[in-house]
């Protein structure tokens, strides 16, 4: 150590100068209950199963989301659409049971990317905390968006031009 370093003082004074500068900086704290931090438009939170413009479920239970899921959080049971159910399901096959285990989910958004029917999307909503583990397995009652057009969940922010363009590319099988 040089003499300058051994007497400590230059370093101490420099350090004190730096900390003093911080006294008057803008505080980084977000005062939570009064102020909520803004979410990104493409935040990946709780999933939603979309309906189409006529209120029919878009999901056809193809299982691509379950295959794409790295955490194996998605399970589903398919069923065939009966005559008279055309107003409920868009195509002949639909998901009778669709479950996502929110404890396993890593919110990567791969399901959304894999979906050929634009049925599943991640939203800015958060998964609420629970006391029991089994409450984290979300069924269709929690995932499918409401029928009422006014209460539909807006995912237009997630469907950026790049995403829409990608969905049109016929070189990928799931887009056909």
């Amino acid at each position, binding site marked *: 150590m040089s003499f300058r370093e051994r007497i400590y003082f230059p370093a*101490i004074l420099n*350090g*004190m100068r*730096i*900390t*003093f500068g*911080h*006294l008057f*900086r*803008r*505080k*980084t*704290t977000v*005062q939570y209950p009064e102020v909520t931090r803004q979410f990104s438009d493409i935040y990946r939170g709780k999933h939603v199963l979309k309906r189409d413009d006529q209120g029919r479920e878009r999901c056809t239970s193809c299982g691509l989301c379950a295959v794409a899921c790295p955490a194996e959080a998605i399970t589903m049971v398919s069923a065939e659409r009966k005559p008279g159910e055309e107003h409920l399901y868009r195509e002949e096959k639909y998901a009778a049971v669709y479950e996502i285990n929110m404890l396993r989910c890593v919110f990567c958004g791969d399901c959304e990317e894999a979906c050929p029917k634009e049925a599943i999307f991640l939203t800015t909503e958060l998964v609420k905390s629970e006391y029991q583990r089994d409450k984290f397995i979300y069924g269709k009652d929690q995932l499918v968006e409401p029928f009422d057009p006014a209460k539909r969940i807006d995912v237009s922010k997630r469907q950026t031009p790049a995403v829409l363009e990608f969905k049109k590319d016929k070189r990928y099988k799931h887009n056909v």
Partner: protein
Amino acid sequence: MATQIIIKTILASFILLLSLVVAMYSTLIERKVAGWFQDRHGPNRTGPWGLLQPLADGVKLFFKEEFMPASADKFLYILGPSLTMFVALLTSAAIPWGPDLVINGVAYPMQVADVNIGILYVFAILSIGVYGIMIGGWASNNKYALLGAVRASSQMISYELAMSLSIITIVMMTGSLSMRDIVAQQQGFSWNIFYQPLGFLIFLICAFAETNRSPFDLPECETELVGGYHTEYSSMKLGFYLFSEYINMFISGAVMATLFLGGYHFPGLDKLGLSPNVFAFVSFMVLFAKITFFGFIFMWIRWTLPRFRYDQLMKLGWKSLIPLAILNVVITGVVILLNQ
């Protein structure tokens, strides 16, 4: 005589109350300052600006479980924090808090006890403070606590030497051990810090070590010793230890202001022609401002510097500060001799 006793009692209780309230709010200010240094707000939920935080902390400490290790020495275990607190509160007696108050034409000094060996008294009491920590650490019957206590006592003994040596120069210049005389001599702007900058620096560093404040807070070094000497303490006994640290901070600020920064003197204040009692009050506020300044320095340093390593601490104390302090004494002696 009776009024004398009454005035002294009022003064003593006032200073006791003042030390306690200041210590209480130091904990809040410390956390606030820490927050500001780290670009945060600090506590601001309990009452406006977090002003009720110390009360909430106090209530919390009182309601915590009173835990005592089974193998602890019961008597010493309780004596430790009590002694620390007691000693921390004793020191303030010899500090002159302001010029004389005049009531019915009789002057009453704003000092609980004008001991003619004031400095010696302060240092004697400070040295007893080691016992509180040592006894507490020993009685806990825990190796972390014991190591923390050993560290604390050896650190305090080492730095007391340099501290006393830096004070000797002040005594040499003043020719008196009385705090009152020392303050009186710094009238106006002839503060001791301008004559003894080196002595002041040494005293400041030693004050950090004596109060176990960062960067010399090795006795309670969390990374190595869990909680140091108060590892086994909980509830208000722990509160006493933590509290006495802040009282010590306040008192050492007062001692430093008294010895080096002219006590309650401020240049030009005595020429304003204020009435004696107003003058006494303003002077007291001046002293208080100086103490606050030192308190801020203590916190500023704490949130800037990392902790010293133990060998660095000992090396700094014995190999740097003590020789420098002796050099300071010699230089002062020569200068005084030449001026005669």
